[in-house]
Structure formats: C-alpha cells, structure tokens
C-alpha cells in the first residue's frame, strides 16, 4: 500500500483534505457570522465581543495560525488539483452538455475555481482592512471594532464589492458544503438528500446574512459631519 505520507497525495486523499479543510472553513463562517450579527446591538455589545475574543483568549494566535493553515491548504490543494484535472482531458469536446438529473452539476459547481480565487482576493482585502487596518481604542477595553467596521464599509464601492463577494461565497458554499460531505465519504440513503439540501440552505443563509450586515452598516453610518481620522 501507499506509505502514510502518500495518503493525502492520491486523488482520493486530496479530495479528503479539500473536504475537511473546506468544511472547517464553513464552520468558521458560522462562528464569524454569529459574531458579526452582534453589530446590530450597538458598539458596546459588539466591541465587548471583540474584546473577549481577542484579549481574553490566550489561544487566539494559535487559532489564527490554524485558520490560516486550513485556508492555505484548501487553496493550494484545490489549485493544484484543478491544474492536474486540466491535463486529464487535453482535447476538449466540440459539444458538451450537462447530463441532467441525477447530476448535481450547477453553475456553482462548475465555477468553484473561479469563486475560490475571487474569495482569495477578497480575503486579502478583507483581512488587511479588519485585522491589519487602523485601530481605535475602546474605553472599556480592546479596540473599537465597531468604528473600524463603520469606516471600512462607508464607501459605497466597497459595500458593493462586499455584497458581490458574498454572492460568490454563497455560490462557493452552494456546491461546497454538500460536496465536502460527499468528499468525507459520508453517505446514507435517508440523510444524504437532507444534508445536500441543508448545505444549500446554509449557503444562502450565510451569503444573505453577511450581505444584510454590510448593507446595514452602510445605511447606519454615524452623522455625515463626523470627522474621520
């Protein structure tokens, strides 16, 4: 048999790795949207959440590194797999049509590499703005993340980019969540159809949820006369 080192390098092992990392990223998004939704309750609640997460959590650097590793593995393995798959069919079909039911092929599943690469670019911009952007102190402790978010989403073009990117997230998850379940080898006559459906529902909830947050932040900017630093 293949050595243990080769376990993740075969076509099935690659799929497992992409499935596990993808599913972890999906779980992270659930936590992320939960935290972000606290912005509706005002700066005190939102900043306190950020304070507890960032200052009261000694494991944060470790979690951040793990998240970065998961993300990089997911991106690296998928891009490499995509390139390898291109060489598996060097001569294209003159005519190729979707085969129809019971195929799960959708626009979302056909554009995973495009939506994935878009999200890579989005995340660089997103993390730069929120993790490495200008910080303001919050009197009760930690940083004024509320103000940071308000400022980051004060530009209509940026809000538009965020909303567009959330459509892309939704598309990626629309195929991704169900696909991860299949990649992990989970299959059951009764539960698989339900999981497939649940994956699509979660994709829509996450995408629309983040869109609402971005739009709400833009529409609830503090007074126009306020001086920005």
């Amino acid at each position, binding site marked *: 048999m293949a050595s243990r080192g080769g376990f993740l390098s075969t*076509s099935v092992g*690659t799929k497992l790795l992409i499935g596990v990392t993808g599913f972890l990223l999906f779980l992270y998004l659930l936590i992320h949207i939960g935290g972000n939704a606290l912005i509706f309750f005002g700066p005190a609640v939102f900043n306190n959440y950020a304070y507890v997460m960032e200052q009261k959590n000694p494991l944060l650097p470790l979690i951040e590194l793990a998240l970065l590793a998961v993300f990089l593995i997911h991106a690296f393995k998928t891009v490499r797999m995509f390139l390898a798959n291109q060489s*598996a069919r060097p001569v294209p079909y003159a005519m190729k049509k979707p085969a129809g039911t019971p195929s799960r092929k959708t626009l979302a599943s056909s554009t995973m590499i495009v939506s994935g690469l878009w999200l890579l670019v989005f995340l660089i911009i997103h993390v730069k703005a929120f993790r490495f952007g200008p910080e303001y102190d919050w009197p009760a402790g930690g940083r004024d993340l509320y103000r940071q978010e308000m400022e980051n989403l004060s530009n209509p073009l940026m809000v538009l980019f965020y909303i567009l990117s959330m459509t892309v997230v939704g598309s990626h998850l629309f195929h991704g969540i169900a696909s991860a379940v299949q990649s992990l080898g989970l299959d059951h006559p009764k539960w698989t159809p339900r999981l497939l459906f649940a994956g699509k529902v979660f994709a829509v909830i996450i995408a629309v949820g983040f869109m609402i947050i971005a739009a709400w932040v833009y529409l609830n900017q503090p007074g126009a006369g306020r001086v920005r630093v």
Partner: protein
Amino acid sequence: MNLKLRIWRQAGPAAAGRLVEYAADHVSPDMSFLEMLDVVNEGLTKKGEEAIAFDSDCREGICGTCSLVINGVPHGPDRGTTACQLHMRRFKDGDSVTIEPWRAAAFPVVKDLIVDRSAFDRIIAAGGYVSVNCGGAPDGNAIPIPKDVADLAMDSAACIGCGACVAACKNASAHLFMSAKISQFALLPQGHPERHRRVTAMIAQADGEGFGSCSNEGECQAVCPKEIPISNIARMTREYVKAALLAK
C-alpha cells in the same frame, strides 16, 4: 427521416482529427443508433470512402463496448441506456447530431470514434479481483449474506466498464468506475481478505493512468447506463480511510 451528422474523424492515434459532416438520409425511426451508423458506413464504402470506425459488440446494452458522445452527452440523451440501445425515434427529422469519442488523456483515440480503454483493465488488474483457491465448488449459500447487502453489491457489480463516467466528468475522473468495482467486493465477505490492498492499489493505478480527481458533480451517475450512484464513491473514500488506518 434525414439527419445531419458531424462525426469525429481521426486517422490514427498521432494524427490530427476533425469533425466531418455527413448526411444520413432515409433513416428509419426503428433503427438503433449504431444501425444508423452502419447504414452511413455502407454508403461510404460504396462510394469508396473509408468507413467510420466505432466500437460495438453485443448491441444489447450489456458489454460496455460502445462509446459515443452523442450531442454532448456520453451514450446520448436517454437515461440508463448505452449508445447501442438508443433508437432513432429519439431524434427528429432534420436534427443535427454531433458524434465524438470519449475524451480523456487516459483514453487515447485509436481511430475515429474508437478509444483505447485498456487503462480500465490495468486498474482491474491492480486489485479489482478476488483470489480463490482451487478445489471443490463451495455451496452457494455457505456464507449467509443479507438480501439488501447482496442487492447493493449487485447494483455496483452492474458496472460494464464502458467509461461513460470518465467521458462525462469534467475532470475525466475514473472514480465512479473504480468505486463500483471496489464496492462490489467491499460489500461481500468474499472481497474482504484483499480489501485494504485493493483500494489503495486501484486508486494508485488510476492516478498513474492520468485520470483526474472527483469534484462531486455527479455527471457520471447521470450518464451511467447502469445508473450506478456516486454513493459508491463515498464508500470508496471510506474504504480508503479504513485501508490507511487498518492495513497491516
């Protein structure tokens, strides 16, 4: 009825191929798709042209030899049907029909519509078998197997190895084929002695042959003439993990 055909012609493995237009006139709706091609070929032969090369054998949907991508779908528009069981009544007078061979690096074109599918044979040789000691024939029911398990194994064993799954997959992946072969043995006690070796060897062979990996789109299960579902692929993944953890 009369049809316009666009057929892939390629003189040999190294030659450049192209789509060539042919007219198929006076086609009876009762003809099978391959019989229609036979008639076109007769016409070509009478004119002194080279007949279109295509694979066929049993012509009753059980051997897995026919391998035509018809209007962009392997085995054509009918569900659970091989190209040989597709009938011309499925088409309308004046239809344009594009016919191409399976497209995959691991299935090189031999000539026209014929591809070399020996990569599948090598995957089977790598592990798709059970070793049986010679001796007296064992009693058929000596090993009790629940009916539902036997049925599931039989559903997987229905794979005729035609390669439509590879042809339909955007990655030209052989996962559905492999997983059907692995499942039919993994489900039955007779397949258990070699199960760990089997799954790792077959996957390694398929990767080496140049097949792609699986994106869980399920185009394969939609074109499979035996309607083999991708739940087999999930089972193959479980077998692969078990093999990595438990193989001695």
